């Protein structure tokens, strides 16, 4: 087969014809029956047709591929022009008119064909897009006053053939045709003004009058000029046809009034637009449907369940099979219930079916359920197809859109292409709209997924710097960074002790990791911080702030996870993994009186600490903490402790009124962690009883910290808890050996303990901060709710 060159008009025409024949939308194979009818419509002798088929290779292949089809069309044109049929003639014959496919039915068609063929010469007039579906409704025109109408006999003769394929043929053609029209409402030349209503109604009249065949009456045979059709239509008793057509006659009602109004409305509409969709619902019809809907379901926005709809439509006495088909067409979202739009579509289909129209394979556009409100239903009749376009796709809920593709695929592809596109557009937009909220969540988890701050076992300056950078980097990336910055700000503001600063001071903990088991501390602190971050990261997402995690005493809950028992049992200064939470006994707060004593050690500790701090510039604000702790450690080393009385004094001072006379015990009691409470209670008295000096210094730093925390946090409970924890921490301190002889060891032990305390306090701080954040979020959400409610209060 030689290559085929087609002009533009030919290309368009051929592709349209191919689509027309491609009822199964394979885009590759054309149904033989269709093609044969098409060729028959070309008014060529049969042997010529056979010859054409042979030449194009269809007989060889057994089917009509696209190329075969095109070649065949070209050969048809060749034959019609009178040229001998030869393979070479495909390309050699120049200026070949477009093949004419006449249904050979009635004069109108032939007339049109004539006009069409004359137009075919013109480039742009790619008219006669769709050859009249051969052997279709033209028959009905018999009654039309056209003597030249091809005798019905031929049409009838073809009828036996057409019904064979009617179920498939009729539906696609019409919608396809109509769609073309609706798609190119302005393309007068490309779309022959199908004079939709013309052929539509007149055949319909035919159907009523005599046709028994269920052929798609509305398949527009080559649309004669509208006026002509109009005239023809007028010849036939329009009212009768309309009467039969109107649903009023179908269903129980037969009000003449509605019929008359429908008639006028239909006529008017037909005059106005020649692209009317035969499936469009008139206003009166729509109103009627709505009324019927109301009888079943008073709520116009509600659904009619399948069972009720079944009963209702069974009354129309259509066969169940057809009702089932109608249901498939009209239940757009496949939910087993009918919305108002779906119901109207179903009703309309029932009406049409009752009047002899074949059911389409696919729901026509104008019957597609629309998202437009009922008020807009009046607009249904105005624009052909466009309304269907605008409305139909948008309706399906986004969840349906994924399923719609599968549904759409079952329909002839060509019929679906346009709606498919619009549908996808709409669905995507609606998807974006509806998924807007959900998109927030995914976005934030990313930010909330704070890359866990890696914690090295061995400290190093570089590592600490990295840690700091990472921490700050992660801070920047997640919304909690401001929060994390806050503590530092607060710290700076209030010169908070290291405990508070430790919330953001991972590196500090890392710096402390020089001691053996402190590796666990930074981890836990890190986890603490990450927890905080993650929590704060996710919280903005929630429309309603998550209820603050049950934290009667956050510090305790967390610390409990750290096995306070263990920490308390190991108050000898041994640091174990996981012990971090346990506020190790705060090294006895250095007493001023003992300044000279620990001075020896102070530089050592301070240097050690300060060096750590110096390595990380970001930790500058924390240096004062170091200084504090160095003092603590110094004090611890020097075993300078206040009297127990101090502790007793300070605790009441520090703690809010809740504190009992025995501040330590009360503090511990306040703890949620029963374990810790018990432990601390046990240890505290023990510690207290042990010696005053060890306890003395701790209370002071505790107090200091508590005070600062007080300034920071308004919550008293937490303070009490914190103080309790701190007290526990301090309480454990007494275990520090006081022997001066083992200064270094003691110093190291105290250092470790201090570090532990730091970590614990840092965690506490982070928890408190988290709580604060939660409370703030709650507040914000409440404010939002209040604002939402407020406008309504005016109503």
């Amino acid at each position, binding site marked *: 087969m030689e290559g085929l060159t087609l002009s533009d008009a030919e290309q368009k025409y051929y592709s349209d014809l191919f689509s027309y024949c491609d009822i199964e*939308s394979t885009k590759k194979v054309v149904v033989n029956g269709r093609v044969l009818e098409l060729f028959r419509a070309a008014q060529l002798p049969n042997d010529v047709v056979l010859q054409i088929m042979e030449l194009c290779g269809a007989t060889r292949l057994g089917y009509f591929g696209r190329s075969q089809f095109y070649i065949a069309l070209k050969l048809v044109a060749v034959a019609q022009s009178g040229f001998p049929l030869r393979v070479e003639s495909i390309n050699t014959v120049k200026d070949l008119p477009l093949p004419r496919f006449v249904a050979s039915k009635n004069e109108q068609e032939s007339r049109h064909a004539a006009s069409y063929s004359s137009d075919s010469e013109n480039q742009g007039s790619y008219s006669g897009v769709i050859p009249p579906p051969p052997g279709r409704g033209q028959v009905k025109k018999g009654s039309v006053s056209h003597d030249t109408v091809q005798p019905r006999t031929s049409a009838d003769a073809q009828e036996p053939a057409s019904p064979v394929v009617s179920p498939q043929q009729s539906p696609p053609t019409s919608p396809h045709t109509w769609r073309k029209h609706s798609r190119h409402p302005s393309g007068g030349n490309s779309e022959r003004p199908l004079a939709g209503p013309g052929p539509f109604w007149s055949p319909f009249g035919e159907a009523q009058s005599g046709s028994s065949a269920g052929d798609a009456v509305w398949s527009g045979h080559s649309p004669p000029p509208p006026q002509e059709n109009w005239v023809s239509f007028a010849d036939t008793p329009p009212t009768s046809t309309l009467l039969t057509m109107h649903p009023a006659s179908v269903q129980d009602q037969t009000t003449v009034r509605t019929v008359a109004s429908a008639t006028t409305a239909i006529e008017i509409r037909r005059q106005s637009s020649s692209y009317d969709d035969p499936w469009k619902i008139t206003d009166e019809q729509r109103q009627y449907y709505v009324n019927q809907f109301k009888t079943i379901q008073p709520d116009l926005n509600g659904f009619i369940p399948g*069972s009720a709809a079944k009963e209702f439509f069974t009354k129309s006495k259509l066969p169940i099979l057809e009702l*089932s088909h109608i249901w498939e067409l009209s239940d757009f979202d496949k939910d087993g219930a009918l919305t108002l739009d779906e119901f109207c579509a179903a009703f309309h289909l029932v009406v049409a079916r009752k009047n002899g129209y074949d059911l389409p*394979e696919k729901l026509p556009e104008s019957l597609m359920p629309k998202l437009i409100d009922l008020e807009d239903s009046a607009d249904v009749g105005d624009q052909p197809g466009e309304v269907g376009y605008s409305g139909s796709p948008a309706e399906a809920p986004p969840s349906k859109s994924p399923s719609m593709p599968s*549904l759409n695929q*079952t329909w002839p592809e060509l019929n679906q292409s346009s709606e498919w596109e619009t549908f996808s557009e709409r669905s995507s937009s609606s998807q974006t709209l509806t998924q807007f909220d959900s998109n927030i969540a995914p976005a934030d988890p990313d930010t909330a997924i704070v890359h866990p701050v890696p914690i090295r076992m061995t400290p190093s300056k570089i590592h600490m710097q990295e840690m700091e950078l990472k921490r700050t980097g992660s801070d920047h990336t997640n919304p909690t960074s401001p929060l994390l910055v806050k503590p530092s700000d607060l710290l700076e503001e209030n010169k908070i002790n290291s405990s508070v600063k430790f919330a953001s001071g991972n590196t500090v903990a890392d710096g402390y990791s020089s001691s053996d088991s402190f590796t666990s501390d930074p981890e836990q602190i890190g986890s603490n911080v990450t927890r905080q971050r993650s929590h704060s990261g996710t919280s903005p997402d929630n429309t309603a702030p998550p209820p603050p995690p049950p934290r009667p005493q956050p510090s305790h809950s967390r610390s409990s996870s750290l096995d306070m028992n263990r920490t308390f049992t190991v108050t000898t200064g041994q640091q174990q993994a996981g012990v971090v939470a346990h506020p190790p006994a705060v090294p006895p707060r250095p007493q001023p009186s003992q300044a000279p004593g620990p001075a020896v050690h102070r530089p050592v500790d301070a240097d050690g600490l300060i060096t750590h701090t110096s390595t990380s510039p970001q930790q500058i604000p924390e240096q004062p903490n170091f200084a504090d702790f160095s003092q603590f450690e110094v004090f611890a080393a020097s075993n300078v402790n206040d009297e127990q009385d101090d502790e007793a004094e300070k605790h009441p001072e520090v703690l809010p009124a809740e504190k009992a006379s025995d501040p330590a015990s009360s503090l511990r009691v306040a703890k949620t962690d029963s374990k810790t409470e018990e432990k601390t209670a046990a240890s505290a008295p023990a510690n207290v009883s042990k010696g005053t000096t060890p306890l003395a210094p701790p209370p002071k730093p505790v107090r200091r910290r508590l005070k600062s925390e007080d300034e920071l946090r308004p919550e008293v409970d937490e303070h009490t808890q914190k103080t309790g924890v701190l007290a526990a921490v301090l309480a454990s301190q007494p275990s520090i050996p006081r022997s001066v002889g083992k200064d270094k060891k003691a110093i190291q032990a105290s250092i470790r303990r201090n570090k532990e305390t730091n970590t614990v306090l840092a965690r506490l701080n982070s928890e408190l901060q988290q709580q604060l954040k939660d409370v703030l979020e709650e507040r914000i959400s409440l404010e939002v709710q209040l604002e939402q409610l407020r406008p309504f209060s005016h109503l």
Partner: protein
Amino acid sequence: MAVCIAVIAKENYPLYIRSTPTENELKFHYMVHTSLDVVDEKISAMGKALVDQRELYLGLLYPTEDYKVYGYVTNSKVKFVMVVDSSNTALRDNEIRSMFRKLHNSYTDVMCNPFYNPGDRIQAFDNMVTSMMIQVC
């Protein structure tokens, strides 16, 4: 791609069966019928405890010289059996799965139709099935 598609009810009678017309249909009917035993075997092999976790897609039921038979069962024990041509090597497992999924969706759509009596022959599959089968060309 599929040469034959069948929907079999719980009681093992066919609700819908369709083959490409070019072949001897009876042969496909027979293949589907024999594949039911394999389907039952696969279902029972899962064990009662695993009923919930049982996957709907059964996979290749059994291959013959010319054809391969795939199975799929729904939770209501409605079985879908598909016979594909062995020569069609491009057909991969997930494609079969997607075809079964489409079948299942269409089946549920049919079920949603109030005019459909469960147990009746299914008339509404043709379009979709045709789209699956016509691609053989």
